[in-house]
């Protein structure tokens, strides 16, 4: 376990660093923020002062060194826009996104498992056709459009839920209802596919030969085996959500990291952007570890102790996180 973690950290640290450096450089490619923050008729002198005050006149490498020096001392810089600590802003926005992402994924997985299993019981049956139709439609509706229609119908016309905001449980309905569509659609397909193949595995027949009922066969024997591919895709989808559900956050006024990120891009608020990226990259890193652990929990074959038997198969088991997602 420890050696696994160590390996994992080493193999992920470099990409993490590359991401940060890339963001750092790319952000600065978007131009000097001086004109955004100075009065329209600011003089050259004022611009130069501003640029110098924020160290933007230094060569990129120096700026980067400064930044990483600061990061090592847990100083992530201050926001140009609000003057607050960038880390504070990112940390404040992140829980909102996380809550949204977690609820969405739990719901999406739950629904997808039910619908996908149901569809898989009779491949190409009527239930299968309906569920594939519904899930494909769910996955292909532009989310912003769905959000606005949702507000129109459920908040204005029916008045069941508030239009937006974060106060009260009812306020979660629309954002999550919007967000859940795409993961749900994608997962139904994956779950269905995995269930179809799990249900045709020999161990299903074995279970039936012991007199197990259909329900037991599905919930007990097939589902857990079908969970690995679904987990891979769910992981990728969660990464997308953790990176911020910009559109939904924008529309519903959800104070999340996606909105903060896009705002800081638009405002050239580099420190905040970097803090956000750093935070989400670390979160994604943790997420991947969690997914690895889940794999091991769900499937004993990928647990470290299985070395011997795997050796007999002569082929190293592929690292689960690197397997391809079915469709995102």
């Amino acid at each position, binding site marked *: 376990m420890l050696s696994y973690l160590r390996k994992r950290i080493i193999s992920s640290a470099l990409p993490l660093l590359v991401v940060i450096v890339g963001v750092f450089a790319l952000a600065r490619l978007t131009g000097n923020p001086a004109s955004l923050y100075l009065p329209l008729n600011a003089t050259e002198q004022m611009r130069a002062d501003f640029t110098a005050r924020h160290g933007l006149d230094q060569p990129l490498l120096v700026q980067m060194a400064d930044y990483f020096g600061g990061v090592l001392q847990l100083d992530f810089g201050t926001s140009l826009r609000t003057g607050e600590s960038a880390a504070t802003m990112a940390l404040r926005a992140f829980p909102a996104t996380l809550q949204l992402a977690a609820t969405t994924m739990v719901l999406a997985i739950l629904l997808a498992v039910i619908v996908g299993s149901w569809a898989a019981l009779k491949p190409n049956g009527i239930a299968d056709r309906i569920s594939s139709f519904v899930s494909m439609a769910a996955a292909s509706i532009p989310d912003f459009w769905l959000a606005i229609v949702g507000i129109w119908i459920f908040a204005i016309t029916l008045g069941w839920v508030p239009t937006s905001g974060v106060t009260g449980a009812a306020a979660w309905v629309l954002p999550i209802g919007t967000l859940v569509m795409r993961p749900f659609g994608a997962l139904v397909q994956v779950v269905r596919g995995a269930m179809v193949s799990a249900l*045709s*595995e*020999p*161990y299903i*027949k*074995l*279970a*039936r*030969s*012991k*007199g*197990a*009922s259909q329900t*037991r066969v599905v919930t007990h*024997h097939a589902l*857990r*085996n079908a969970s690995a591919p679904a987990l891979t895709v769910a992981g990728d989808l969660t990464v997308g959500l953790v990176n911020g559900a910009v559109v939904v956050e924008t529309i519903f006024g959800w104070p999340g990291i996606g909105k903060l990120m896009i705002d800081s891009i638009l405002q050239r608020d580099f420190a905040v952007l970097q803090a956000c990226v750093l935070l989400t990259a670390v979160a994604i890193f943790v997420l991947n570890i969690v997914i690895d652990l889940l794999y091991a929990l*769900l*499937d*004993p*074959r990928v647990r470290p102790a*299985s070395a*011997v*038997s*795997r050796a007999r198969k002569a082929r190293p088991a592929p690292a689960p996180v690197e397997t391809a997602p079915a469709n995102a």
Partner: protein
Amino acid sequence: MTSTAETSAGRTAACPVVLRVEGLDVDIRTPAGTVRAVSNAGFEARAGQTLALLGESGCGKSMTAKAVAGLLDPVAHVAGGSAELEGRDLLRMTPKQRRKVAGAELGIVFQDALTALNPVYPVGVQLGEAFRIHHGASAARAREQAVQLMRRVGIPEPESRVNAYPHQFSGGMRQRILIAMAVALSPRLLIADEPTTALDVTVQAQIMDLLRSLREEGDMAVVLITHDLAVVAEEADDVVVMYAGTVAEQGPVGQVFANPRHPYTKGLLESVPVDAERGSSLASIPGSPPELKNIPAGCVYQDRCPLAQAVCRQERPVLREVAPGRRAACHFSDSLATASTLEEIQP
């Protein structure tokens, strides 16, 4: 364990029939239409005895077994016939009735031992499942039973291995676990579909030993499916030789092997490289079995049979009694009985 013709014939009469299959037809839907994978199969398995289903790959052995156990793939279905387990027709049971029988009275060991176990549950849980389903045992009780079962099939240190996962066992051990699962509730009938094909000879010997002792212990009827003539010769009392979905010949093993009444059986026996000299050419059956969708009218073996005559192309030979306790489906089975080589029979 050696069973000679004499002893088995004697025993056969004494043992009650556990499974009686009659006129079993199994159809498969294929792109080319519905084809008959098993046609008019019939045999009897007796308590305390081993009946071998012998035949080449694809001849319908597993299909027959799965039809009896009610576990056919979705593309296949039983089209006719009956399979009576101690008098009750398995093929006409409701799913619910069948679930009651499954595991409790009829155990089955599947062909692909290495994949048949559910990879995500400890073997103990899987072994105990039958007790939970049929006896409503608690998890702890089921586990205890599982330990006992593992001990019974000769798995060392069952207490510690009961929590291990299938992949942590070798092929032979997994096969033992499957067998243990099938005999958990001491069924009357055990169907073992190629239980040793994937295993080494030394392990095969162990497994065969185990099956034999379990059979004797529980007075079970065992249906052993295999394509290994030598295994049949050593393990079975009776043999059913199948070819292209039909039964070619059946009878006590000793008699059938000593004196085959169907040219296919004869051909098989001759292609075993047993006494042949190093480098000498083996007698082999030319060609390959017909595809299911192209089963010829008349005798299914006609294309490969050295004896084939006009009558073979027109008329499918019925399985008929050719000697006491022996049946064969060949127009020339009587001439085969007397001829020592196939050539002699040429009319």
